[in-house]
């Protein structure tokens, strides 16, 4: 009761009941699922969390209470954010309000969850809200960057100068400004960590977008790509063709070049063999499931990722908690993408509706993925795959003969790529 009162004082308009007896908005009219069946709390409102929130409300016919927590009041999309760096889109064009989720009965909480007590099924918040209970928890936290692996980057000061821009927002705009202020004959150096990392084609798309800008504004400038991987990790031939045909002579791609340290003041990236100096450095460190996954005890794969049961997205470490998106230990050939996180959200929503009604989740889930990458302001390439559950291997498996990549880059796919963003944003948010 104390908690409830504190919450109401802090939270104002949000309606809330106890975890099992909330009063529902008028939409719970489906006869088979009429009674409220409990509360799902969702930590992280990105591609995974937002999708899970909307679909839990839709598929439970309003009988599951859904709370969606995020530090940020609005959604800024990571997919398409390279276009802001390239200059053909603004941050406003990749930013969306979450308000329409309220029409589905999702309760939006702007705050940070600092701790999960899974024995008591309670979460603690940083600022506005008092401790709150849940029946099931979804953790869709995204990635944190492993700066501890790069000694020179391990300070707030270093991190404010050498940017990642791998979460869309202020860093996206700041990196664009750094590139704009680069000398005309300057060098942009980007480093790519060993896979797996968030958005496999993302770094190569970024190279295209920076090249697209430099080609117009600073044609004497150069790009060095230090890739820890032995080759381009996604759509390699298509990216190479774009680099060769659209940005000839501008891009120096160096595979097997893992950055081991950064000299921030000297503007130098260090590999085992080389020191590479640049005017603008863009360091993508190794990544792992974000801190809240770690402190909740969900990280159980390679000390970096969260293993899940692919029939429900339920954690294999902590029962009652479902993990979505980039934070998961991916199934074979499954990329860490926004599109895939959306698919995880739907799989989890469907399974949670069944579980909370005492039924078994679907035993044959199917997910699909597509990543569109802009190789210029207008031309796009894609990679796609379909993943069906394999009961013997107990995982999702890419269907042989399905999926693939674009035949060639095209403006037709440029239009589809942007349309994909509009449709997936509204699939999550409206």
């Amino acid at each position: 009761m104390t908690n409830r009162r504190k919450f109401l004082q802090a939270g104002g308009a949000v309606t809330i009941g106890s975890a099992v007896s909330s009063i529902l908005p008028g939409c719970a009219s489906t006869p088979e699922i009429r009674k409220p069946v409990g509360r799902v709390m969702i930590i992280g409102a990105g591609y995974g969390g937002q999708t899970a929130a909307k679909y839990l409300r839709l598929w439970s016919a309003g009988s599951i209470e859904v709370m969606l927590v995020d530090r940020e009041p609005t959604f800024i999309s990571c997919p398409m954010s390279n276009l802001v760096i390239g200059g053909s889109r603004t941050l406003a064009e990749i930013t969306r309000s979450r308000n329409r989720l309220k029409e589905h009965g999702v309760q939006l909480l702007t705050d940070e969850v600092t701790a999960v007590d899974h024995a008591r099924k309670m979460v603690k918040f940083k600022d506005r809200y008092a401790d709150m209970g849940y029946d099931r928890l979804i953790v869709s936290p995204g990635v944190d960057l492993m700066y501890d692996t790069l000694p020179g980057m391990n300070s707030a000061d270093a991190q404010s100068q050498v940017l990642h821009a791998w979460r869309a927002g202020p860093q996206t705009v700041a990196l664009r400004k750094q590139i704009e202020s680069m000398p005309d004959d300057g060098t942009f150096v980007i480093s790519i960590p060993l896979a797996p990392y968030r958005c496999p084609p993302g770094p190569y798309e970024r190279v295209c977008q920076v090249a697209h800008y430099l080609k117009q504004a600073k044609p004497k400038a150069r790009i060095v790509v230090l890739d820890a991987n032995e080759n381009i990790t996604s759509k390699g031939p298509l990216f190479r063709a774009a680099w060769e045909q659209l940005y000839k002579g501008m891009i120096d791609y160096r595979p097997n070049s893992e950055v081991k340290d950064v000299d921030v003041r000297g503007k130098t990236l260090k590999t085992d063999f080389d020191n590479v100096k640049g005017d603008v450095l863009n360091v993508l460190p190794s990544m792992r499931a974000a801190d809240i996954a770690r402190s909740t005890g969900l990280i159980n794969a390679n000390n970096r990722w969260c293993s899940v049961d692919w029939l429900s997205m339920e954690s294999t470490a902590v029962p009652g908690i479902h993990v979505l998106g980039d934070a998961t230990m991916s199934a074979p050939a499954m990329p860490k993408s926004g599109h895939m996180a959306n698919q995880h959200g739907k799989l989890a929503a469907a399974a949670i509706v069944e579980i909370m009604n005492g039924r078994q989740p679907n035993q044959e889930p199917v997910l699909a993925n597509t990543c569109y990458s802009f190789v210029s302001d207008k031309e796009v390439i894609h990679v796609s795959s379909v993943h069906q559950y394999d009961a013997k291997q107990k995982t999702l498996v890419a269907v042989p003969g399905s999926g693939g990549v674009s035949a060639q880059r095209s403006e037709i796919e440029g239009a589809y790529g942007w349309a994909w963003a509009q449709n997936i944003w509204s699939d999550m948010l409206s």
Partner: protein
Amino acid sequence: MNRTLLLAAVLAIAPLGARAQGTDPNLGRMLASNCANCHGTNGASVGGMPSLAGKPRAALLQMLREYRDGKRPATIMHQLAKGYTDAQLEAVSTYLSAQKPN
């Protein structure tokens, strides 16, 4: 509730006919949620991609089969359609044809 208990509970209460062969009673809905990322929630596109909601089942199914068999020009649908069984293509067509267009 742990998994074994849950399963026991399910076996005790679930009408068995509904789960014969383990088929998802929400198969069409689940499959259509694969398409929603591009074609909009329940196939109602917000633009730039064709809308599928409310199109006749036979037309949807025919297009999907043509994509699968490489008989219909496409940038991507020929790759995606190959990832589903014919029964799944039927189920998703049935579901989408019953949805409200925008």
